[in-house]
C-alpha cells in the first residue's frame, strides 16, 4: 500500500494546475461570467480546445500510437486528479459527459457531449447543460443497463436562467426520443464513473473554497487584527478542511479501486460515499467561504458566489445525496458484514 501520488501523477496534477492558472485565472473567469447570458458565449465552451488538446477528456482512452484519436491510456485514478484541478479552477462546461463520451462513445476531439437520465416525476424539470453546443447526448438507462445516444437537435427544449451563470441550462420539453443504442457500454458503469468524476470536481472546488477563505481571512482586518485570528473564523476554516480531506481520500480511493477491479457492488458503495461527502464538502465549504467573506462575499464581483452556485450544480448532477445514502445503506447489509471488519476495509 502506498496511497501517495506517484511522480507521474504529481506531474499530471501540477501541469494541469499551471495550465489552468495561466488560461483560466480570475480575469478569464470574470470575463466568462460577464459574457454569459449576453448570448455571445452561451453556445461557446470556454477553454474547450485547450483542455481537449491537453488530454483531459482522453486521459482514459487507450493509447493508439500515431493516431489523433488515441488517448493516454491512463486510469480513473489519473482522471479524478485531473478533474479535481478543473473543478478547482471552476472551468465550466459539460466536462464529465464529454469525458464519458470520449472514452465510451468515440466523441472526437474538441467536441462536447451531454448526458440525460430520465428522472422520476416530481424531481423537477429535466435539464441539459449547454444543449446547443453539444455534439451528442448520452442516455443511460440504469434499469435496463443500456446506453443510447441521441442527436441534441432531436430534443425539444427551452433555455432557462441557470443559477450558476456559467452553467446555462435547457429544459427538455415533451418526451425524450429513443436514440441509437451504444453497444458495449454499461449504463450503470457510465453512471458510476460520471458520479465519481463529478465528486472529483466537487473536491477540487471544496479545496478552492478552503484556500479562498483562508486567503481572505489572513488579509481582511477587523477589530485591529486579521479576521483569521478569531477563533470563530479559524474553526469555520478548520471544519471546511476537515470535510474536504476525507472526501478527497474517498474519491481517490474509489478511483484506485475501480482501476484495480474492485467488484461492482463494493465499488458502487465507495463511489456513492465519495460523491455524498464531496457534495457536502463543496456545498458547505462554499457556504462557509461566503460567510468568512461577510458582506464582500455577497457581491457579484467577489467570485465567492460562483463557488456556491457551481457546487449546487454538481450536487444536482449524477447521483444526488438521497440516492447515494440509499446505496450506502444497502451496502451495510451485504452478506458477510455481520462479522469481521466488513466491506470496504476488506479490499486491501
Amino acid at each position, binding site marked *: *500500500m*502506498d*496511497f*501517495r*501520488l*506517484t511522480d507521474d501523477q504529481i506531474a499530471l496534477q501540477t501541469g494541469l494546475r499551471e495550465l489552468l492558472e495561466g488560461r483560466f485565472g480570475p480575469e478569464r473567469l470574470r470575463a466568462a461570467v460577464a459574457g454569459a447570458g449576453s448570448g455571445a458565449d452561451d453556445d461557446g465552451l470556454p477553454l474547450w480546445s485547450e483542455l481537449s488538446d491537453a488530454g483531459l477528456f482522453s486521459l482514459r482512452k487507450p493509447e493508439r500510437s500515431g493516431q489523433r484519436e488515441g488517448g493516454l491510456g491512463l486510469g480513473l*485514478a489519473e482522471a479524478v486528479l485531473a478533474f479535481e484541478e478543473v473543478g478547482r479552477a471552476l472551468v465550466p462546461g459539460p466536462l464529465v459527459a464529454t469525458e464519458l463520451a470520449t472514452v465510451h462513445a468515440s466523441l472526437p476531439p474538441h467536441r462536447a457531449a451531454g448526458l440525460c437520465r430520465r428522472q422520476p416525476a416530481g424531481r423537477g424539470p429535466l435539464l441539459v447543460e449547454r444543449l446547443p453546443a453539444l455534439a451528442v447526448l448520452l442516455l443511460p438507462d440504469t434499469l435496463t443497463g443500456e446506453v443510447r445516444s441521441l442527436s441534441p437537435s432531436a430534443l425539444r427544449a427551452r433555455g432557462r436562467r441557470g443559477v450558476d451563470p456559467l452553467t446555462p441550462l435547457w429544459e427538455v420539453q415533451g418526451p425524450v426520443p429513443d436514440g441509437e443504442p451504444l453497444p458495449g457500454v454499461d449504463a450503470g458503469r457510465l453512471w458510476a464513473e460520471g458520479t465519481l468524476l463529478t465528486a472529483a470536481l466537487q473536491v477540487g472546488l471544496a479545496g478552492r473554497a478552503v484556500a479562498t477563505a*483562508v486567503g481572505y481571512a*489572513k488579509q481582511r482586518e477587523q477589530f*485591529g*487584527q*486579521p479576521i*483569521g*485570528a*478569531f*477563533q470563530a*473564523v*479559524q*474553526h469555520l*476554516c*478548520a471544519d471546511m*478542511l*476537515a470535510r474536504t*480531506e*476525507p472526501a*478527497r*481520500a*474517498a474519491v*481517490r*480511493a474509489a*478511483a*484506485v*479501486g475501480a482501476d*484495480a477491479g474492485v467488484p461492482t457492488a463494493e465499488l458502487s*458503495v*465507495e463511489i*456513492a*460515499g*465519495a460523491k*455524498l*461527502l464531496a457534495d457536502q464538502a463543496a456545498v458547505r465549504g462554499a457556504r462557509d467561504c461566503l460567510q468568512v467573506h461577510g458582506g464582500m462575499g455577497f457581491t457579484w464581483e467577489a467570485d465567492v458566489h460562483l463557488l456556491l452556485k457551481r457546487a449546487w450544480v454538481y450536487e444536482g448532477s449524477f447521483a444526488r445525496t*438521497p440516492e*447515494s*445514502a*440509499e*446505496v*450506502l*445503506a444497502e*451496502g*451495510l*447489509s451485504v452478506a458477510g*458484514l*455481520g462479522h*469481521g*471488519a*466488513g466491506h*470496504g*476495509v476488506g*479490499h*486491501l
Partner: protein
Amino acid sequence: MDLQDTPAEAEFRRGLRDWLGKVLPDVPSPPDPLDWPARRVHDTAWQRRLYDAGYAGVHWPREAGGQGATPAEYLIFLEETERAGAPYVGANFVGLLHAGPTIAAEGTPEQRRRWLPGILSGAEVWCQGFSEPGAGSDLAALRTRAVRDGDDYVVTGSKLWTSHAEVADWCELLVRTDATAPRHRGISWLVLPMDAPGVTVRPLRTLIGTTEFAELFLDEVRVPVANRVGAENDGWRVTMVTLSFERGTAFAGEVVACRRALAELAGLARRNGAWEDSGLRRSLGVLSARFGALWRLVQWNVSEAQGGGVPGPGASVFKLCFSEARQELYDLAAAVLGSGALVLADGADGADGADGAGDDWTAQRLQGLSYTIAAGTSQIQRNIVAQRVLGLPKPGRA
C-alpha cells in the same frame, strides 16, 4: 496511489491471520472491567503471547527490541487484530504506545535496557502522569514540582486521568523542574516507580459509572535523577517527539471497530423495523461513507508517514472527524434502539442476550462522550488545523 498490499505486506498479513486463527480460540474471555488485577493478568498475558510469536512492538525499531515493521505493516497489524477480535492493548497501552517509544528515542542505553524488555514482554505495566487538575488542554500549565536533592528529585503534586494506575509498575511523569523558566522550558520527563513512598492512587469514577482512570497524589516522592529521560527542563520536547511515533495510526483500530459496529447496527435496524424509517436508514448510510473515508484517510496518513513526510492532511483533521463520527454512530444507535437506549445491559460482561442490549450500546454511547475531549478537545484540534495546517495567525491582542 496503490491500496493493495505489496507482496511483503500480503505475506505479513497472511502470517498474522494464520497465527490469530490459531491462538484466539485459546484466549480467555475478558474479565470483569472492575477487577483490575484480573485485567492486568489478561492484558499482559496477551502481550506475552504476542512477544513469544514475534509480534511485540511491531512498529518499534529493531534496536529497541521491536519488529521494525513499516507503518503500513503496523496498520495491517492493527486492522487484523481488531477484525479478528483479539484483545485490546489495554493495560499495555502507555508502555507500548507512549513511554516505550519515548525511552527508545530519547533514553540512554541503560534506560533502554532497563525498561524496554519489560514493556515488550508484558512483564511491566505503565501509566501516564501528564494531565493535572489545572492543566488539561493547557498541559504546559502543569505544576507538579520536582526539586533536586542529591541524586533524587523530590516530587510533589497531583495528576489526573491516569489510566491503569492501580496496577501499574511505572509512570511516565511530567514535572516542573524550573519554576522560573518560560512554561514550556522548565519541564522534565521522569520515570516514577509506582511503589515509591508518597504515591497515592485514588480511583476516579467516570460518568459511565466505572473507574477506568485514577488520580495520582505525589507527596515528596523521591525519584532518582537517573530516571530522567532527556535533559533536565527538556521534557516538553521529549514528549512531543513521542507523538511522531504514531505515524498516522492513532485510532486506526477504532475505525475498524466502528465500521463493524455500524454494520451490526444496520442489522439491528433491519430486525426491529427502524430500517423502514428512510431518514434513519440514510443517516446510517451517511455514517458508512464517513467511516469509509476515515479509513482512507488513515491509509493516506500512514502512506505519507511511511514516505517520511508529514502524515497526510494531518492527525488533527482525522481526530476531529473520527471523534464526531463515533459520537454520531452511538447517537444513531440510540435512535434505532428506541427506549432500549435508556437502559444499560444487565450483566457485568455487558451481555444480557436481548437484541440491542447485549453489546451495550448505551455504555458505548457514554464512553464516546470522551472522544471530543480526551487527547485534545475538538476545539483544540480546530485551533491546530487552523494555525498549523492552514497557517492562520494566532489570536492577537485586539
